[in-house]
């Protein structure tokens, strides 16, 4: 069995779809964050910027969308791009942790929001978690 790519950018008529996979939920969330970073500003390295994050949601899919929206908010306000996250605690509906990334002078793409449109985290037959997210551009 080949390991699937952590994320892949797919087309959408007006916006952008991101397909994400992970061995674990934690990896799925980290890969989704990396995927989003690759859209906002590709090629960012470094972990000098740290931001605390705490999310409570209705279910795990909403937790992922809300997590990414919070990262997007912090990114917009602090002019930073987050390429990784570590989680102190994570359940199906809550998480606490830290985003890490680097400051940027500008972004390449304006993501207005991460949407819940057709988002549904599922475990595929190979045991990987997968989800497709639509970003409003």
């Amino acid at each position, binding site marked *: 069995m080949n390991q699937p790519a952590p994320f892949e950018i797919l087309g959408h008529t007006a916006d952008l779809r991101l397909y994400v996979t992970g061995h674990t939920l934690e990896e799925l969330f980290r890969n989704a964050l990396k995927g989003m970073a690759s859209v906002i500003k590709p090629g960012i390295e470094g972990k000098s910027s740290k931001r605390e994050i705490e999310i409570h949601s209705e279910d795990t899919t909403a937790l992922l969308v809300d997590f990414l929206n919070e990262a997007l908010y912090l990114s917009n306000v602090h002019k930073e791009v987050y390429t990784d996250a570590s989680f102190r605690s994570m359940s199906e509906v809550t998480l606490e942790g830290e985003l890490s990334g680097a400051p940027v002078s500008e972004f390449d793409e304006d993501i207005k*929001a991460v949407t819940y449109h057709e988002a549904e985290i599922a475990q595929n037959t190979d045991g990987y978690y997968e989800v497709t997210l639509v970003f409003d551009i």
Partner: protein
Amino acid sequence: MSQAPYGAPTKKDLVKIHDYLWEIPKLFRSDMRVPARIYASEKMLDLLFKDRSLWQLVNLTTLPGVHKYAFVMPDVHEGYGAPVGGVFANRLDDGIISPGSIGYDVNCGVRLLRTKARYGEIKDRIPRFMDELFREVPSGVGQGGRLKLSTKELDGVLEKGARWAIEKGFGLERDVVYCESNGRLENADPSFVSEHAKNRGRDQLGTIGAGNHFVEIQRVDEIFDQDDAKALGLFVVGQMTILIHCGSRGLGHQVATDYIKLMMQAMPKYKISIVDRELACAPFNSPEGKKYFNAMAAAANFAWANRHLIMHEVRQAWKTVFGEQYTSPELVYDAAHNIGKFEEYDGVKVIVHRKGATRAFPPGHSEIPEDYSKSCGQPVFIPGSMGTASYVLVGVEQTMKEAFGSSCHGAGRVMSRTKAKQIVRGDTLKEQLEKQGISVRSGSMAGLAEEAPLAYKDVETVVDVVHNAGIAKKVVRLKPVGVMKG
């Protein structure tokens, strides 16, 4: 483009009402509460089945309190939750309000300015004007503006909209008269706008951002209706106009994000089940519904203040380049195309959701400027793709009877941004446009490629559908001679 999911209509499910209007009957899917309608020519129909637009349209007809029917304009394309180009109205007494069906860019809209200059007189100075415009109007992703507002000042913007800008010396007293809702929704309540939203918008007033937002200088290319054009101050072919397209920036995006989350949490309480989470909604009369309506109004006011500041910046650039030779550009009108409005049709009070659709009230309507009410009706601006053409339309009586006083809003995308970037290079496109006599200024060549004309429908066919369907009337065509993008 993605495959049509289960429950998506096919061409054989359509019933023809007339050459430009089609219906998906209520019986098509058991969860439909009302029929779904499509404004399109037969030729356009095949295109509509290539993405999920019509599945998303049918989903709108399942929402509680939906009145009469939901419909899409000819510029429709797949969105998230609701299709872009979608219109539906929900009864106030038993209906819902849905943030995703108004859109993340609350009160994204278009305003047109007219000038007294003629193309032949200023042709050589257009590149200089574009340079000046690029300097005056901050653009680009995450780009802040000249103002960084305190929360108190920001609350003033959210309460007063365009009026705030006038009070601060940006724009003229007459300008607010020529904005939809006079540039201010009175139910706005800044206390329902989160700190997150305020932080995102704090430094963004007077900026256009990126994506499909732009400032364009154009010349009148053809006049279809002399009397209506004259009423709008558009007198002759060659007269120069300026079109501004943008919305509520990060502040509006965050308001939508916050309230979609809130409504997802609230839906079980109201026993609402939906086909797609992005259609998350709450009864209009619930605390959640009212809070969103008032927060959305505050974000809409931010957008009007934003376009007012951009207009001020445009006027500054104009003055720098043309001095006293021409009077300052005058506002023709400002119309929203992502908004929820409290209106009344067939004696029923409703919230009209317009997501990628423009209000288009006819002559005689009390909510439009008096001079337009007595003559042409409310103007509607339909920007085409970059380098093609834009249209000025006016509202007609028929739209009140059948389209909740609405018209279309643009050309409508047909190709993804990723694909457009694979096919088109931004610098090559810039070169081609310059050869056509269009000065292009953009901070991002990739962003330019994403907006390439081939990614859009032909605006003329879109406009012809609403004109021929009798829900709006064509007045003027404008051709761009300078485009500024983020």
